[in-house]
């Protein structure tokens, strides 16, 4: 006989203000199977949990229902409490009478009535719950970091420092990421390369870190603690173990017309190249789409000159397969394409550039050796106009609905740097709002305005057009309430940033959730900001949301802390709510395996008694509980209903349906 206990939480006034909690508890007392029903101010509090534990022990409860906030909030709390009182933690069900009831209904009568139904539904379910035991799985003590930007570098270094092996997979030929392209960093204006490159070198030299550059994650199987990852090492046509980074090949390479991606395509590079001077690994790579040897079969000059014989035109992509316990995603960002913003004339005017291009134009290692020259004619610009929020906070559908967060600060930085280096230059900034919260950030912006005399104009730019070699920036000045047109030599667009597009593939491989803007979703916006809902996957940097370097570094370190916390464990508990076939009913038709995204289902031939002393051999499904994630796709595919999901069985769900429909 079932002995159900029901606990109704007031959540202070969050529930009690709209739901008559006492009446709910009173009404529920007369439900069949319910032997105990109580209400309390905060069930999740120490005292509330004590109340639950005591009731379990005193009334010998076989299952409990807590009418409280969302199970996404405190299900774990109440399960733990139940377990401590000797009740199987899976004999607990939560009736969500806060988010799904008290918070959305205003009428007390109506909300109370609904709360009763929700609690009854949970009772109907808990009556069919079965005690479940979590299995255990071992933890592979190695972490994978996807992306070798500052986020990945920081996370890898922290994890490696704690004594665990880390692999960094970087799709480009070198680690460093976007930060390596920056000139100065706000708010201190120190040189980006000067603070980044030592960390890159640390990575290369750390005995626990293995950098897999020019590589991509190809396939991920497994689950937290036991990811099995296949990594494609793209052919770079240069033997990484032999190349010394002497750059002789670059001097000799006759194909010099390749666009230099590192410099935002503002100048050219040779087919065989090292992306930039401080690249890690300091190893050349051949762009096979550009290389004459690949295009025509003739050439091979680099091979002749390479003293160590590192050049290998026959190299093929290879695959590395490794086991990891945890994965950090740090895939970074790119500026959005400006195809939808013709009004700014980016495609038509060489002197309309993006902020990241400006970074390269200002950088001593950039295409102009750090001298600010207009891309069109190599002249010093005298009037520079910045346009903020290009594609950010855009609800028209052309750009991104979110704020890219970093643009206000870097525009202030750019404006300031130009005024500092070239005091005769006029600098205007069109902005919608200036958003500079953060330590020393607003001061930084004020300095730009107050000390450096940058002309900030509140208003949007309608159009940028070329008139007699001058860029006419036509916009609104909302404060003076007038239309202004600024004759400029250089226009810089503070382009919105978006997650690096390859993150979609990574998310799919990792089964990590991703939002409509391609940002990976964190487990909880406030309380679990660096964890993906997929166990064992952590998020660092812009792949999770727009952020600047200090924030990225903090998040990366937070990730590292989480990873270390995971890797120090020897064993993990697995989710017991997995699929389970009833072999007596299984047809062995393989349909369930066809829809299983995890390959958790295999088949075996088993002997069954069929009556009359006879047996027959049938092919039946078998689920690996460590691999199954418990989605339930197989349960609906199975026509005989042989496949069911523990914790969400068909009977349980149908009993919930019945309870809801019961008049």
């Amino acid at each position, binding site marked *: 006989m079932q002995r159900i206990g029901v606990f109704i939480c007031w959540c202070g006034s969050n529930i009690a203000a709209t739901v008559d909690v006492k009446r709910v508890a009173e009404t529920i007392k*007369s*439900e*069949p199977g319910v032997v105990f029903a109580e209400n309390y101010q905060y069930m999740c509090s120490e005292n509330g949990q004590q109340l639950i534990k005591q009731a379990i022990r005193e009334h010998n409860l076989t299952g409990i229902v807590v009418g409280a906030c969302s199970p996404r909030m405190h299900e774990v709390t109440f399960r733990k409490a139940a377990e401590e009182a000797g009740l199987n933690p899976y004999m607990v069900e939560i009736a969500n009478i806060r988010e799904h009831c008290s918070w959305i209904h205003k009428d007390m009568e109506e909300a109370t009535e609904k709360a009763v139904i929700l609690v009854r539904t949970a009772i109907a379910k808990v009556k069919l719950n079965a005690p479940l035991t979590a299995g255990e799985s071992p933890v592979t003590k190695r972490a994978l970091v996807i992306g070798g930007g500052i986020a990945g570098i920081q996370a890898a270094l922290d994890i490696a420092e704690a004594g665990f092996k880390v692999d960094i997979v970087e799709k480009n030929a070198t680690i460093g990421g976007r930060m390596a392209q920056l000139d100065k960093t706000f708010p201190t204006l120190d040189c980006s390369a000067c603070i980044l490159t030592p960390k890159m070198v640390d990575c290369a030299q750390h005995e626990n870190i293995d950098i897999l550059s020019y590589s991509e994650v190809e396939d991920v199987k497994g689950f937290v603690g036991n990811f099995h990852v296949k990594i494609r090492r793209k052919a770079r046509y240069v033997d990484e173990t032999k190349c010394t980074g002497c750059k002789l090949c670059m001097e000799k390479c006759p194909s010099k017309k390749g666009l230099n991606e590192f410099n935002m395509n503002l100048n050219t590079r040779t087919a065989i190249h090292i992306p930039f001077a401080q690249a890690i690994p300091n190893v050349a790579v051949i762009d096979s789409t550009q290389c004459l040897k690949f295009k025509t079969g003739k050439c091979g000059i680099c091979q002749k000159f390479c003293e160590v014989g590192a050049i290998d035109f026959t190299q093929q992509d290879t695959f590395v397969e490794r086991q990891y316990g945890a994965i950090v995603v740090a895939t970074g960002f790119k500026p959005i394409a400006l195809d939808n913003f013709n009004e700014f004339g980016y495609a038509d005017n060489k002197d309309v550039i993006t902020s990241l291009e400006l970074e390269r134009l200002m950088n001593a290692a950039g295409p102009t050796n750090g001298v600010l020259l207009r891309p069109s004619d190599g002249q010093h610009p005298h009037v520079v106009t910045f346009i903020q929020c290009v594609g950010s906070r855009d609800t028209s559908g052309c750009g991104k609905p979110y704020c890219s967060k970093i643009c206000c600060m870097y525009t202030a930085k750019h404006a300031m740097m130009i005024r500092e280096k070239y005091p005769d230059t006029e600098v205007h900034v069109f902005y919608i709002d200036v958003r500079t919260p953060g330590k020393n950030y607003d001061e930084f912006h004020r300095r730009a305005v107050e000390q450096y005399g940058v002309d900030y104009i509140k208003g949007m730019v309608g159009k940028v057009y070329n008139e007699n070699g001058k860029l006419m920036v036509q916009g609104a000045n909302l404060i003076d309430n007038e239309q202004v047109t600024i004759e400029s030599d250089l226009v810089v667009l503070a382009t919105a940033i978006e997650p690096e597009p390859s993150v979609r593939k990574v998310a799919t491989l990792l089964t990590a959730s991703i939002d409509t803007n391609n940002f990976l979703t964190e487990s909880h916006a406030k309380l679990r900001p660096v964890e993906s809902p997929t166990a064992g996957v952590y998020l660092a940097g812009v792949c999770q949301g727009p952020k600047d370097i200090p924030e990225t570094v903090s998040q990366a370190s937070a990730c590292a802390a989480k990873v270390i916390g995971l890797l120090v464990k020897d064993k993990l508990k697995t989710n017991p709510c997995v699929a389970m076939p009833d072999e007596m009913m299984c047809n062995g038709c393989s349909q369930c395996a066809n829809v299983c995204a995890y390959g958790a289902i295999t088949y075996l031939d088993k002997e069954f008694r*069929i*009556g*009359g002393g006879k047996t027959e051999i049938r092919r039946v499904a078998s689920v690996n509980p460590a691999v199954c994630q418990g989605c339930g796709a197989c349960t609906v595919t199975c026509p005989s209903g042989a496949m069911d999901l523990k914790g969400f069985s068909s009977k349980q769900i149908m009993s919930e349906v*019945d309870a809801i*429909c*019961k*008049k």
Partner: protein
Amino acid sequence: MKKIAKAKLNELYAKISESMGLFLPIKRAGEVNYAVWGEGKEVSLETLKTVKSPKNAFFPDSENLMKFKTEGKNIEIIDVRKDYKEEKPFVLFGVKACDYKAIEVLDRVFLADPVDSYYQARREATTIVTLACSKPEESCFCKVFGIDATAPCGDVTTWLDENYLYWQANTEKGEALTALVADLLEEGGEESVATQQEATKAILEKLPFSALDLSRFKPENLNDLFNDPAWEEMSEACLGCGTCTFVCPTCQCFDIRDFKTSEGVLRYRCWDSCMYSDFTLMAHGNSRTTQMQRFRQRFMHKLVYYPSQNDGLYSCVGCGRCVNKCPQHLNIVKVIKTLGGKNDD
């Protein structure tokens, strides 16, 4: 003997329906089954074999027995039987000789002690009007069971020809019904009936199954018949569906089941089929594990077990529905032919 012009039959139905329920063969979505008469319904007396037999007038496909109403922790048991105590009188119209005989088979089951009060209530409230056959077809073999298709019994016997329905009351109930519709009836028709009967008998004589040999189906041969190796082959194509059972006028097995309603549980009984794999399913498992055993059970029951307990009355009336309807053309005729004639001596 009385008669009524075919054209006036609708008036007859309407008259009966004024004070009684009227259950007769009605065509719906292309198929003829017994159903309650109503204005505009397409009556098809000519149909030799309704898909389902009229047995569901007394033994419906499904009927409610009781309710368990739950309120809080209390359960109230509601007996829904009283609904049937005062069964509205009704007329079962157009019953063929075979189907009428089948009612006798059912009566021996449901009216024997303990009496099935549900069945009894409906049985007693019914006046049965039978209809003689005039165009038997090749699957008919009622004659084998001693049934005269041209002169069925019942409270009223009727004959139908191209112009008239002929009417003869046999019982008090029949007389009462005759009195009710007396205004619509006229005298006469004996000759037409006799002519029709003669013609029909000539066809019946020649029917392919008219001379099936049932001699081996005796209680003393039970074991031999049960163990006959032929069952295996006869049943091998059986799908295990319930078609034969559900179209059969004499099959009387039922199951009692519970259904969850919004306020508790509704207990009902419904037709069951011995051909189903969960028939005879018990707590320990199922005593019949193969389709052969189920198939054998059905025919052994019809031809051996039932007659041995019911004065030799077979629980097959030769209506031939199973002959026509079995998806794979297995039927009792093939069983009789295979086993019936084989005498051990």
